[in-house]
């Protein structure tokens, strides 16, 4: 006792606690929820309290839980953005999308004009050439921005960059450069496109500085700001090298445990940080040694595996009949390796999340989990198929039988839905993309995710995408896979917490849980479904601490 009780009044509170679904008042003490009621008199039980009206005009929902994001989201917070879609930035501003390549050039020209040091390289990100049919972005576009300043433009995929002639010159990239991925034009000269890591390394110090910045404190603070503007109060860093980088955890601790940092972070460790041919037993020991450093705001969630590439990169591994050209995608670990490591992690009680974009990978990971369960009967493992974009009914049934969870990449429906329908996997598989309704029918508890920075962090867009399944061209992809706004909200709150083993303490507004709320202008359950993504996030509360979202005129 001793801590004072604060009762927050709201226009409406959506609790996601089925036994007490709504209310108008929530009582908070010492960062924990004492209860939700329609009448504050119910809180007399607890003694003296103070009513706080700051949210009286707002709707409170459980803080969104993002079970698949990357701290990389914070890296580009202050970097000019030239993507196709409007993008909400961590400072609360919105960077407008670029409808054409000319718009990209315009935007970069204004960035260039605002730079004072002529020697400084202009770095921008977010270019998505799939949206600009016709001429491929190349050095000549960027030369219109500057013929003297080096320009490095990272694509949305993160796998490709386009640079200008000044950068090619400064870094000595010429017709003689041998590296595969340094694209040469018909004239035999570099076009300015650098594909994949080795080719991008030619761009020189600018690339190294991006790597260095990846784990900097400023990146982590911006990751938190991105969570705040998206209403996210708990997020994963789903794939961290912390097992081999002790300094990284020190950075995370100093930022995340700060009261001003507006989110809880759950790190999932890449076992390959210990080497591509790591011993699973060594990973278990390394994981266990970090457990003591957990706090209420930082958790070591488990292991992250990555088993294939992406659908839009044609590297997600598909079962037959594969892609239209007969290719099948690229494995990044083998089924044998998964069968060797997953049972070891499982036996040690470690939750495993595996990146499985293609359906063939879903089979392989599920095989490994089944093997683990034959050996050790840990029934509450909640091993999760991450992305799970193309899973079939049969796969989801099997996952349900084995106690597995799914995390569906709902934002893909909007950001690449048309491309999947027209180009990558064709209509039938595009229509079952992110099979939320099938998962529900087959009894798999699922979450929805952004994979930030691949798409922006934020619960509302995920709900919107899963409820409407519309594409930029106006298709409704697989109307049978649409789910209700309630079920979608559940998927970005309590069911996302479930797969992180955190639903006991977060994910609903319920007595005994942590006081983590998203403060919204309207209820996603009340507005027109197509307007869900337009609801304003006014701020969040994390463990009783209020964080106001920045307002930008």
């Amino acid at each position: 006792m001793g801590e004072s009780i604060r009762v927050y009044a709201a226009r409406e509170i959506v609790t996601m606690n089925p036994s007490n679904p709504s209310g108008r008042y929530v009582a908070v003490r010492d960062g924990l929820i004492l209860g939700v009621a329609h009448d504050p008199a119910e809180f007399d039980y607890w003694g003296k309290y103070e009513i706080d009206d700051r949210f009286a005009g707002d709707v409170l929902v459980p803080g969104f839980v993002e079970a698949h994001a990357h701290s990389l989201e914070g890296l580009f917070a202050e970097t000019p953005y030239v993507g196709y879609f409007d993008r909400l930035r961590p400072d609360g501003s919105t960077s407008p999308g670029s409808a054409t390549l000319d718009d990209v050039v315009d935007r970069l020209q204004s960035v260039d004009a605002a730079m004072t040091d002529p020697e400084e390289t202009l770095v921008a990100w977010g270019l998505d050439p799939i949206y600009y049919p016709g001429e491929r972005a190349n050095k000549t576009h960027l030369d219109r921005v500057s013929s003297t300043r080096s320009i490095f433009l990272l694509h949305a995929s993160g796998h490709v960059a386009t640079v200008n002639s000044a950068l090619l010159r400064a870094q000595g990239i010429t017709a003689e450069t041998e590296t595969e991925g340094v694209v040469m034009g018909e004239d035999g000269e570099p076009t300015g496109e650098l594909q994949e890591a080795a080719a991008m390394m030619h761009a020189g110090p600018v690339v190294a500085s991006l790597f260095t910045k990846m784990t900097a404190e400023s990146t982590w603070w911006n990751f938190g700001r991105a969570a705040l503007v998206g209403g996210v109060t708990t997020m994963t860093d789903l794939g961290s090298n912390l097992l081999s980088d002790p300094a990284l955890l020190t950075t995370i601790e100093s930022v995340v445990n700060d009261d001003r940092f507006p989110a809880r972070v759950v790190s999932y460790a890449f076992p390959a940080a210990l080497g591509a041919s790591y011993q699973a037993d060594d990973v278990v020991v390394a994981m266990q040694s970090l457990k003591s450093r957990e706090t209420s705001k930082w958790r070591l969630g488990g292991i992250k595996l990555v088993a294939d590439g992406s659908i839009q990169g044609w590297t997600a591994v598909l079962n037959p009949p594969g892609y239209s050209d007969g290719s099948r995608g690229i494995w990044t670990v083998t089924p044998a390796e998964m069968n060797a490591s997953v049972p070891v992690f499982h036996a040690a009680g470690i939750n495993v999340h595996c990146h499985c974009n293609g359906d063939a990978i879903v089979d392989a990971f599920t095989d490994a989990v089944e093997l683990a369960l034959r050996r050790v009967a840990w029934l509450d493992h909640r091993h999760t198929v991450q992305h799970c974009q193309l899973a079939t009914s049969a796969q989801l049934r099997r996952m349900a039988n084995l106690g597995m969870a799914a995390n569906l990449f709902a934002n893909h429906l909007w950001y690449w839905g048309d491309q999947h329908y027209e180009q990558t996997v064709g209509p039938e598989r595009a229509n079952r993309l992110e099979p939320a309704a099938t998962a529900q029918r087959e009894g798999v508890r699922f979450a929805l995710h952004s994979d930030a920075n691949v798409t922006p962090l934020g619960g509302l867009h995920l709900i919107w995408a899963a409820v409407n399944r519309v594409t930029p061209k106006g298709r409704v992809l697989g109307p049978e896979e649409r789910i209700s706004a309630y079920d979608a909200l559940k998927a970005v709150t309590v069911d996302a917490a479930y797969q992180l083993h955190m639903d006991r303490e977060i994910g609903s507004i319920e007595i005994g849980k942590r006081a983590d709320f998203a403060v919204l202008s309207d209820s996603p359950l009340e507005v027109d479904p197509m307007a869900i993504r337009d609801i304003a996030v006014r701020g969040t509360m994390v463990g009783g601490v209020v964080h106001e979202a920045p307002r930008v005129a």
Partner: protein
Amino acid sequence: MSGPAGSGRGVPPLPFTVIGGFLGAGKSTLLNHLLRDAGGRRIAVVVNDFGSVNIDAELIASHDGDTIALTNGCICCSLAGAFALALPGLRDRQPPLDHVVVEASGVADPFTVGQYGTLPGFRLEGVIVLADAETIRDHAADPRLGHQVRRQLERADLVVLNKVDLVTPEAAAGVEAWLRELVPGARVVRAVDGEVPISVLLGELGGAERSPATEPAHPHPFVTATLRANAPVHRAALEALLERLPDRLLRLKGFVRLEDNRWMEVQVVGRRWRLRAAPPSDVARDRSVLVAIGSGEAVAEVASRVAALGFSHDR
């Protein structure tokens, strides 16, 4: 990494070789041999995992985090994370290294890893892929991963057909024939327990200056010949030669003065040849030189063909 300014102009680029191959092909064993018996070279071997390479304790001079220094001047680094960022450290290491050998993980495409060897300060010298004579055909036929296994082989400069002692001679011949059908023009070296002469893996030390050391007894007999020429060489004739080298020639390396007096570096690893301007540090010589390594027949054939370009055996 730093740009060309930091790539040490005037310092010859550091040779870079990739060792790849599917899980179980014997990469770690081969790398262990390489570190143990480096033939006087200072090699940096970049591995996925120290444990699997299992370096003999008496060879270890010091162990500092990601790097094990050996008493013979070699180092072994485990660089799981930011591999690319660690490359400048290898390039700038003092005393300088003679060669960087990078292990590609079992499912990685070794050719893609090799692209790091084309960055400033490095020189890609070969993509070598190991294949387990006993299992490679099964792996290549695997309905799930077979396409990736085949791609590794298709993009290799040189294939080491390992563990040939575990199969009958007929089976070994069968696998080799299958490999040559899968990869037209494949260059195949047979090996037992990952034992491959270092001159075949990494070429001759010091840019073809030294006579090769005597090679140990080996299931595949190799011959080395050093050939020199006084007169300048006609470029088109040289390229025609490089286009049609015998299948059993494994390496050809040297420096050649062209008719326009430019010095070119010739490098053949397996089925891939490169002809590029020689680094300035390597042109202070009076005669063109080529060192050929391969089967006796192949080396003899090369010797007779370069005789037409003015080369004769080093006496």
